[in-house]
């Protein structure tokens, strides 16, 4: 399969799956059916678990046992979190954390 074909299919899959997640409640509960208690409960608690899992997914290929032991990742994640707790501004937190990370891997942990 050429890279173009692969990309088009992958993008289509991502688009369809994204739409599917947004469509689910309208299909399941559009007819005024009651939302089951367990669905409601998981809707409340799952997002925090999923985001935690995704952060781990982001650093899954970092080698914490050798080299720089993930110092750049750990410190940039901490900076992002501290900035966000302090200022509560998404742009500052993401921008600050990312620029700091770029600086670390380009100049410090080369």
């Amino acid at each position: 399969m050429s890279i173009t074909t692969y990309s088009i299919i992958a993008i289509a899959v991502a688009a369809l799956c994204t739409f599917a997640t947004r469509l689910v409640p309208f299909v399941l509960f559009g007819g005024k059916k009651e939302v089951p208690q367990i669905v409601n409960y998981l809707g409340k608690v799952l997002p925090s678990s999923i985001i935690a899992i995704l952060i781990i997914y982001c650093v899954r290929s970092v080698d914490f046992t050798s080299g720089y032991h993930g110092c750049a990742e750990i410190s940039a994640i901490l900076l992002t979190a501290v900035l966000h707790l302090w200022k509560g501004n998404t742009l500052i937190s993401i921008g600050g954390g990312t620029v700091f990370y770029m600086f670390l891997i380009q100049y410090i942990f080369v």
Partner: protein
Amino acid sequence: MDKSAIKYAFNKTLPVLFGYLFLGSACGLLLYKAGYNFIWVFFISVFVYAGSGQMLLASLLTAQAPFATVAVLTLLLNSRHMFYGLSFIERFKKAGKMYPYMIFSLTDETYSMLCSTTLSKTVDDGKIIKAIALLDHCYWIAGCVAGALLGQILSFDFAGVDFAMTALFVVIFVEQWKSFKSHIPVYAGVICSLLSILIFGADNFILPSLILTVGTLTALRSFIERDDPKREVVKACQ
């Protein structure tokens, strides 16, 4: 489209304009770095239209991940969207023919905009929600395309810019951490994914860890709800 509705929605959505131009640029830049120019980025932001989803897509495309992985990770990452719609089942009917588009364009930002927009006395709510959804989508496309163009024009070492995705998740994490008393769901997610990495390896741990987490959270339900009785997912957005 109604002019007064657009004007009303534009004033409302200014924060999203800045947010999307920034986040979209980061996303466009990541996709450009992954080998997709602004034309690709335009179509991706039109059809996929998801902030964290597109960032994840950039890394999946770079790795040429199997389609099943693309599907599972996208579903998982966007699974929180399944609960957004619950608040709008009635309200979106006012959008008439645009009803499917309203569902398609229900991003985190549009969700929070719609939640914070109470019924206007002068302008029809159906027109307002359509205008908000459309404007947000335009901001997003503009931001993404701008990011891809910047990547093409600037001869700057962008190594490490992919950390923007991690940073975005950290930001969402901090907000969820602050708004809920019980942190058991977070610990459950961390422990289950570390266990899954040990058992299934770093490349296949997502699905098993999700299944483990759902099981754990279901088992601990009474415990968690005792800590956080007020935790509400469906806000009053009607």
